[in-house]
């Protein structure tokens, strides 16, 4: 798959997916839509990475999945956070905030110089 401008940074994909599921269970397409919408269309999730990530997260017991019927009566696989996933998300978010703050500080200093 060709690299897109809005590709999610390596290593942050899992966090973004978990974050998307924080409020309610969703199916794969819903997750793409949600992220696109939240990021003001900057982040466009490559499907080549979304589904492997979902299967991996499920295997790691961070999310679980089940078939459900959508509002317009279609069958879809819904993903939801597990307790373990919720913990993992909070840890990753805390770490991400520390990291991005540090990086921003560094970048700001450089501009002043």
């Amino acid at each position: 798959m060709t690299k897109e401008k809005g590709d999610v940074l390596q290593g942050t994909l899992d966090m973004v997916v978990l974050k998307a599921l924080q409020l309610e269970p969703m199916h794969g397409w819903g997750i793409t839509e949600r992220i696109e919408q939240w990021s003001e269309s900057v982040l466009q999730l490559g499907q080549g990475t979304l589904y492997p990530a979902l299967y991996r997260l499920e295997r790691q017991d961070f999310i679980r999945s089940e078939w459900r019927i959508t509002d317009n009566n279609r069958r879809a696989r819904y993903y939801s956070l597990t307790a373990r996933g919720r913990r993992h998300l909070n840890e990753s978010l805390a770490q991400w905030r520390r990291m991005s703050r540090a990086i921003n500080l560094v970048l700001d200093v450089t501009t002043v110089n």
Partner: protein
Amino acid sequence: MRALAEMWQRLRSLAARRELEDRLDDEIRFHVEQQTEKNRRAGMAPDEARRQALIRFGGVEQVREGTRDEFRAARIEHLARDVRYGLRSLRRHPAFSAMAVLSLAIGIGANAVIFGVVHAVLLPDSPLLQPETLVNVYETEGGQGFNPPSHANIEDLRRGTSGVFSGIVASTFAGAPIEHGGEAGYVMGEAVTGGAFALLGVEPLLGRTILPEDDVARGGHPVVMLGHGYWQRAFGADPQVVGRTLRMGGRGYTIIGVAPADYRGGMPALTPAFFVPMAMVEELMGAEMLDQRDFHSFFVKARLAPGVTRAQAEHAASLVAGSLTAARPEGWVPGEQFAFVPTSDVRVYPGLDPLLRAVALLLMAVVGLVLLLACTNLASFLLARALDRSKEVALRRALGATRAALVRQLLVESSLLGLAGAAVGLVVALGFFYVLLSVDLPLPFGMKLLHFGIESKALFDWRVLALTAGAGIVAAGFLGLVPAVQGTRADLGSALKTGSRGSDAPGPLRWRNALVVAQISMSLVLLVGAGLFLRSWQRMLSVDPGFGRVPTSILSLWMPVTRSTPEDAVQRTRRVLERFRSLPGVDAAGLAWPLPLEFSSSHTDFTIDGRVPPTGREAFRAERTIVDGGFFDAAGMAIVAGRTFNDGDRQNSQPVAVISQAMARRYWPDGNAVGNVLHRPDPAEDDLVVVGVASDINMRSLGEPPRDVVYEAYSQRDGGSPMFHFVVRGADPERTSRALIAAVREMDPNLQVFQSMTMAQHLAMSRLPSQMGAFMLSAFAAMAMALAALGVYGLVRYTVSMRTREIGIRMALGADAAGVARLLATNGLRLVLLGGAIGVAVSLLAGRFLATMLFGVGNFDPLTLTGAPLVLGVAAWLAAYLPARRASRADPLAALRAD
């Protein structure tokens, strides 16, 4: 086996994979449809909307591929989760798990031990080079039997067949008192032709082997090679051992090397502690062995020269035998031939191999049955578990677990049981093994099973381990499959609706019934077999061998004779006997060689005036043993006519004989055997005048019909045999034995005590095969019965637990406890009766196979055929009745309330 497991594994992962692929396809389709829908709502034409959606999604195949990588890792994690879950579930039912593991462990342990022993004795790895060109050499008379050749005959064979063999090598027994580490003990070794190791292709572990130049001058090269086991036992596997000196028989022998662990020497069923050159054996043993043509104690191997066939070798050897028969040297039996048997066809000894194979087959069949019983128990438990869990299974399926996942889960659980069974089975096997090794079997020369290559190491052979693990996994995998598949098939609705116990699912219960019937019949067959062997042993115990009925000791002395004249030897023996007779508590003493019921035997040919030998033979033949005049009294035999030997029978007086009553009756039915002459065709043997008739005894085997026996007078033989058994009658044989040894030590340091035992031990040796048979079969039959009882118990308990509510109602309505117990036990007992009937029928058929191994009982032994079912019946009745009675005692209200 492995292919099967692999196939199963592949099928399983394929099923799991298919499931995941389908799910992924559905998700992708949904995703694309949603995107298409969105595009359409944004105003695109339907076709364009779909095209854009697919472009937006990217390569469908790539997505699939990327996701598949994730499945692969998932399978391993699923397995780990299943194992964790399985362990938890097994821990939750400790009684069930313990019974299943124990059943399997008993079955697997018994198999591992028997397979280990059979493997060690019958299927040793041959360390020999190119075994296909090696033959064992025996002597045979008229194609009958295989006798070990004498060294002199082998020398003639070697000289007369140049070019036929690339080498002929002989081994013989060489026991020696060895002083080592401050201790002196009699150690069994082997004298071997120089160059034998090289010919056979056996490389030394350390140092060098015995070379042709070590084996030239008689007594000239005191060198010794250590056997691997002895090197480990006595020298702590010291790598610096080569060059040191070992004192054997009063002389220092230089240690030149150590044999490899897998070489068990050239003699049957005996692993020697050391190897010395053949030229040293006469000095070491103090006996003339190599030039005596009638000293048949050599185990011989020959390697065919390149291009020579066995038939050609046999032809060349028959020419040698023919010229020997024509020349009639002293000690050559006219008409004897050499026989060649491919070395790889010989396990222990050609004459003994068929019996050993039969015994091995019998034992394997027996332990196979025990394993089968254990497996039926496991199957029965698993079926019961599957029924018990039908509600759990239905619930899990309703919650979305796929059937494949549940089957996998159940299989993992039963495989865990299998593995645990195999592991515990190995421990059980080790236990059996130490019991077997520690049982003080009456083996000749104080031998231990260790000397036959039977040691715990035999268990840790990879084939034995593979069998153990394989049995566990196959048993569990196979047995787990049926209940797993059946148990998960259950119709969800009905399983959830009915009571806690999955109703009276008739299919699995019928299975369990069939299993119990099979168990009962199998264990009955084993019980009958054990009963027959026990009866056979009992019969043997009651056999009167005709000698040794009173407390008697036997002391076997090895007297070096090469350093003394025959007259000296006779004088020395006389002094020993006189000394023995003077000891307190000794009533009578005599000597004999060979002893009745000993493994070695001797015979003599003779003719009688006025009687024609059987067609095709030159002479009559009888067992022969050499005794002194005191032997008959000491052995508790009677002289029924004439006299025993006395001081008047000397080297230079008329040679005389005592014969057995059976022989006297056969040749002189009118009762006047005394005074007749036995003419002997062998020029080395004198004609004998019969002076007495002795009561009949068992010579070769217990309970045999009386044989013709010629007793020759020790004082008239040339004293040439270095070994004699002193038979000493005295009230307390144990104490007598100790007194005899002390007396010998005091009298003459040259006399070596070869063996000391009581007559009871000597007789026990003859009963060993049937004793072993009785012991082993009883042990296995007991296990089988325990397993079958466990099976019945499990079934009845299970029935009870299913019918708890019914029991409550019956009792609330006034049924009495005994009636309820009877009702519950009835089904179990009906199965026991059916299994019993089948078992008796099979025993009658299988018994015929045992007939050759039994003594004094037919396979249709009424006592066994009634006793065995009775014992099993009582055990089965208890197993069925106990759980039933417990249920009937339960509080009816509690029973009713039970879900």
